[in-house]
Structure formats: C-alpha cells, structure tokens
C-alpha cells in the first residue's frame, strides 16, 4: 500500500507498455539525429509516400510529388529572388484549385476505378469541402487562435443558413420584397434578396448571435464554456424545429424546413467563352466557394498577425499574463467569438443556397464535432492545416467512406458497411491525434511548442477545488 503510482508502474511494466511507448521512442531517436540525417530521412520518407501514391493513381502522386519537391527546389533559388519563396506553394495549390473543374472533366472524371479512394471528388463534393473549409477556418479562430473550445459551432452555421432561407425564399409569403435576386420572377411572393448580399448579412447577423452567446458565457472556465456552447448549439436547432408556430408565427417552417432557396446569380459569362456549355452550375458554385475560401483564409491569416490576433494567442497561452499585459480579456474573447461566428454564418448561407434548402435536422451536435475534428486533425491554429483537415474529412464524409468501403470490400471480399462506422472513425481520429500528435498533422510551430513543452493554460479565474 505504501508504493506510489510511479514505482508500482515501473515494477509491473505490462506487455503493452513497449508498444505504447514506441511513438515516444521514435520521437527520441528522431531528436537525436543531426540536421543532415534529418534532411536525408525527410527525403526518404517523402519519396516513399510518393511511390506509395503511384500505386493509387498517378495524377494524385504527381500533385503530391510537386508539393514535396518544391521546398527542396526553392533552396537553390538565389538571393534576391528567394523572398518570393513563401508564395510558391500557395500559388501552385491555388492554380490547381482554380483549374480543378477543367482537370476534373478532362482527366479525373473518367478515372472511376482508382485503388482505395475509388473516385476523385466531384465538383459537388468540392463545393461541400469548400464550405466545410470555411467553417473550419472560422472555428479555428475560436479554438485554434483564442483557445476557447466551442462545441456549438453548428449554431452559427444554422443561423447563416436560416438567414439565407428567410430572405431568399417564399417563406414570408405575405411580404413581397425583391432586391437583386436573379432568376426569380417579380411576382413570386416572399422576400427575395440577392444571395451575395445575404452572405454578408448572414455573417453580420451570426456575429451578433455570437456576441449574444459570448457575453454572458465567456467569463466561464474553458470546459464550462465548452458545455455552454454545446447547450446553445442544441437549443438553436430545437428552436428551428419547433419554430413553425412561435406564438402563432411561422418563423422556420418547423421540421419541413425551408425550400426552395433562390440560387445565387453568377451573371451571364457566356461572352467569355462564346458557348453556354462551359459555365455549368456546379463549376460556378465551385469557383464561388473557392473565392470565399480564399477570402476567409486571407482574412484569417491577416487577423492572426494583427494586434487582435496576437492578443488571442496571448490569451490562449496564458490568460493571467495576457491580462497583466493589458489585454482586455472579455472584449478580445468576444471578438474571437464574433469573427469565428461571422465565417460560420457566411458558410452556412452559401451552403443553404447550394443545397437550395435548409432543415433543422442538418444541425446536430455531430456537425459541431465533425468541424472540430477537422481543426484538430489539421492542426489547431494553423490555417493551412485546418483547410487540409476540412477538405480531407469532408471528402471522406461526402463520398470517400462509401467508395473506400466499396474498394476494400472488392479487394478483400468483405462486406463492411464503412459509412456505418463514420462517427466511430471520426472519434478514432480525434483520440489518436490528441494522444499521438496533439498539434495536428500540419501544426503551427508555436502551437506545437505549447503542446510539447507545456504552457500554463490555467485561466485567470481558475481555482483548485
């Protein structure tokens, strides 16, 4: 009975201990390497990844190979020109993204029998990936920058979607307001405002909701805050579900949802190509979401480096020290909430316009946790990592799990219903990443240091019970 926990553990040393400690052992060995050995190891690992990808499909392998090769090539760029080095990888990714609809039609669409992944993401999937990327970048501001765990982010998504639905559908049929809506006849009842205006309006309204939720709750300690946001995330969809007779007023049309929502007008671009077949709806929606994602990422990066962003990071790292340095805690946290909510609202409105509908059932806690796992997988605090995590998980959710399950069943003769395990898989991803690599796949250097060296994150009002 007199043994302490530590001694007892060392004495016992169960069989699984060695396996459990393997990642730590690898990390120790990697740290013991010198720079040259690390460089060589990096080359070998990357080469192996690319060779592995060739077995899946060559366009994917080529893309990853270019991404891997660029940093090595850039090392040889001479002095005055290397100041542009940091723009090279984003430019390549951006170019591929911009031309993706063309690459897809001409090359990828016909490759439907790819090993493991089955098929490449369709344009519809890419739109959804983009919407989730926006939401994940928005959540990253709250969770990654400011370090406030938000488990009710879906409330902001719902708010954005319903804003689009209210002001661009026949929901309020007793009004007849038209402003800039494209493809809606002037005699259609209801409020019809252009989706592009509504994106901004949805963002602003959602930011206000974020402030309203934040003001009373942001004083709370981290885990309490998480639960309160979760509560709000559950209340809002229930209001949407029961909102078909709020004191006799039909606000949300209840479980039947609001549909159809007007499509956004993309303008007539045929004069650019001379034919009407180039500008399909899917392509336009894809380019639309791409522009929104770029704006979101740009704002997020600039915000991170702004005075406000540095205040967020200061609060995340040590609330007490930040307060002592004169950072106004409540105001800064509320801004993080409002900004994160803004992007969630814009993404929600665009998604609603893409699906042309919104239902209360779309806004379950699972979506909040899904977006959170994107942020965690990619790397809390790093915008690029978060975008990658969002694109990857949204692809898995949208078509990947089904096609991967299909190809596994074909190869091994099993009959697994992989999508049935989707939330188990997300849970496994969350747990594994938090245990083995809490800084995410593509971490920001700063966040990584926090997780490995340990930064005091005891909040100002914390007390030991």
């Amino acid at each position, binding site marked *: 009975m*007199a043994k302490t*926990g530590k001694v007892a553990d060392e004495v016992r040393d169960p069989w699984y201990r060695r396996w459990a400690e393997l990642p730590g052992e690898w990390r120790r060995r990697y740290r013991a390497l010198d720079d040259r050995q690390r460089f060589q190891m990096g080359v070998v690992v990357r080469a192996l990844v690319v060779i592995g990808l060739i077995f899946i499909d060559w366009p994917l392998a080529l893309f990853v190979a270019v991404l891997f090769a660029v940093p090595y090539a850039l090392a040889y760029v001479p002095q005055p020109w290397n100041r542009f080095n940091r723009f090279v990888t984003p430019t390549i990714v951006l170019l591929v993204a911009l031309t993706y609809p063309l690459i897809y039609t001409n090359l990828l669409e016909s490759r439907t029998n790819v090993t493991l992944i089955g098929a490449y993401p369709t344009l519809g999937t890419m739109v959804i990936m983009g919407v989730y990327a926006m939401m994940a970048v928005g959540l990253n501001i709250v969770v990654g920058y400011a370090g406030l765990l938000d488990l009710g982010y879906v409330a902001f998504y719902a708010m954005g979607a319903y804003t689009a639905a209210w002001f661009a559908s026949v929901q309020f049929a007793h009004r007849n307001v038209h402003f800039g809506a494209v493809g809606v006849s002037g005699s259609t009842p209801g409020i019809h405002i252009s989706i592009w205006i509504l994106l901004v309006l949805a963002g602003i309204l959602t930011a206000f909701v974020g402030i309203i939720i934040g003001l009373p709750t942001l004083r709370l*300690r981290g885990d309490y805050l998480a*639960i309160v946001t979760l509560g709000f995330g559950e209340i809002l969809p229930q209001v949407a579900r029961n909102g078909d007779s709020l004191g006799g007023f039909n606000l949300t049309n209840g479980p039947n949802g609001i549909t159809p929502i007007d499509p956004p007008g993309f303008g007539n671009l045929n004069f650019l190509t001379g034919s009407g077949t180039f500008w399909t709806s899917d392509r336009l929606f894809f380019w639309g979401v791409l522009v929104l994602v770029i704006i979101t990422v740009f704002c997020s990066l600039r915000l991170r480096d702004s005075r406000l962003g540095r205040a967020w990071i200061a609060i995340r790292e040590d609330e007490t020290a930040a307060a002592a340095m004169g950072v106004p805690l409540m105001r800064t946290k509320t801004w993080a909430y409002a900004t994160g909510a803004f992007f969630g609202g814009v993404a929600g409105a665009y998604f609603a316009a893409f699906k042309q509908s919104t239902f209360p059932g779309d806004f379950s806690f699972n979506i909040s946790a899904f977006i959170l796992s994107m942020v965690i997988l990619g790397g809390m605090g790093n915008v690029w990592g978060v975008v990658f995590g969002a694109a990857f998980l949204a692809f898995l959710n949208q078509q990947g799990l089904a096609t991967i399950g299909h190809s596994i069943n074909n190869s091994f003769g099993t009959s697994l219903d992989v999508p049935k*395990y989707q939330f188990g898989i997300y849970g496994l991803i*969350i747990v594994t990443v938090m245990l083995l690599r*809490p800084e995410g796949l593509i971490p920001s250097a700063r966040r990584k240091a926090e997780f490995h060296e340990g930064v005091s994150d005891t909040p100002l*009002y914390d*007390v030991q019970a």
Partner: protein
Amino acid sequence: MGVVPWLGRTLVVLLFVWLGVNLVKTPGDFGILLVEGLTLGLVYGLIALGYSLVYGILELINFAHGDVFMLGSWMSLYIGVQKLGLDASSSGAKVVSGLALTLLVAMAFCGLLNASIERVAYRPLRNAPRLAPLITAIGMSFILQDVGLNRLGPAPVSLPNILPTGTVVTIGGNNYGWGHLIVAVSALPVLALLVWLVQRTRQGRAMRATAQDQEAAAMMGINVNRTISFTFLIAGALAGVAGLLYALYSTNIQFDQGFTLGLIAFTSAVLGGIGNLPGAVLGAIIIGLIQQFNEGLSWHAPGSDWTQSIVFAILILILVFRPEGLLGERTPEGG
C-alpha cells in the same frame, strides 16, 4: 452586476408561481407528475453521480459517460432479454434472479469500460493542456456511440415489460405503476452504498484526498493512478445500474440516448454543484421534476418539444448566475 441576482430570483419566483397555479388547477396531474418526476430524477441521479465523481477527482467533464450509460442499457438488453429470455410472462423468481445477474454484468461491463477509457484516453494526457482530455472524451463518446449504433441499429429498440405492470396508487385518475416504483426504490440502496463507500471506507478516503490535492495525496502514500481508475470504475458501475434501470423504466432504448440523457445528467450535476455528490442527486431530482412537469402539466407548459431547450437553458443560467450550483462551495469564478 447588481441586477443579475434579482433576475435569477425573479425566474425562480415565476417558476414557483407557475407550479402553484398548476397545482390549484389540476391537483391530480400535479401529484402523479411529482411522483413520476422523483422516479425519473433518481435514474438521472445515478448518471449525474458518474459525472460528479469524475469531475470531483480530475476536473474533467467525462463526455463519454453518457455513452457508457447507453452501452449499459444495451448490455442489459443483451443479457436480460436476449440471453436470459426475460419477458412479460417470466415468473417472479426468474425475473428477480435474472435481473440481479443482468445488473451484475452491466455494472462490471460499464465499470471496466469506463476504467479502460480512462487508462487509454485520459491518463496519457494528465499533464497536457486542460482541453486535451476533454477533446479525447468527445472522441471516445463518438466511438462508443458508433458501437451502440452498430449494436442497436438507428431506430429505438423496445424491451418487454419485465417488471410487473400493476398499479401501486392512483392519484387523481392517473396510475403509478409497480414498475416505476421498483426502479425508484432500487436506486436508493445504490446511493446508500455509494455514500458508505466514499465516506466510510479507506478507498473512499483516498478518493476524497486525491480530489483535494493529487500531489499531497501521493506524498501521503496514496496510489493516485489507482484511485483515479477506481473512481472511473465506480462511476461506470453507476452508469451500468442506470442503464438497466432506465431500460426497465422507459422500455425503450436508443443508440443516442447516451448523448441526450448524458447532457441532462450533466446539467443535473452542475445544478447541484459539480463534484458534490448529494448535490448531483438533488439536481437530478429537480431536473426530473422539471421535465415531467413541463411535459405533463396543462397550464402554459411548453411541452416535450422544448424539454431539451429548457434543460440547456437551466444549464446556461446556472453556469452564468451560480456556477457553484445549489450545494457547491462559492468560488471566485462565481463572484
């Protein structure tokens, strides 16, 4: 913030006015809902205690706890109904012995499950930033919920009426059944056992010491890791009891009941003062009463569509106005 306490008091006064008017208008309904609410509250209390025990010792919201409870319900269904074949026509002796066996298996299963979750997902993160174990808890909750989904299927599964269906008492034309009474009464010895365990035994003293100060407890020769494992074991066993009792109470189980009821139970624990064991039971009884009154009263009751919203609104109001809960100690963050 001078207006805040008055706002809170006004809300409480309004609540009592609403209850009073309903009592005068429909005393029969009020009476039966009071009894039903107590029954439901005791079941919630068993789950809420699991949250409170773990929070008390680790300051961690064990998000997976609700899903351990759900798997307890599943285990009860699997052992009691599918393996032992209990149903409405089983004889009294078979029901008693069968349920006792089911209870033991469910407690052991949930206790071990909860302790293994702690070992795998929380212990490696003991020194990590505070939110890290909360995030793994959410991940574990997803995994368990997926297990439940694959075992139970997406639709609710109904159980036969194993407990006797006769009426104990009729209040104003409403029947209160034997089944519900047995559920309520079975919860009491479990609570008594827990109080004895925490207050009177050596292990309970170790738990309280670890909750107060882990380092000091370790210096006094307490095996902190084992004490924490033991706490998770106890919390899981309580979830197992709650799983069986809930399955008997509602005769309907579903893979996502862990999420909804888990949050209700967590709200109860916060309402009573998280980390405070009598508080958890008191909070659960209040929440159970509020739920039953809300769904059953006729004068200006929002109805079952709003139950979840009301429970979460209570959670938010409590955390904002009185984070220490009803019985918890006042801490600076509540100031």
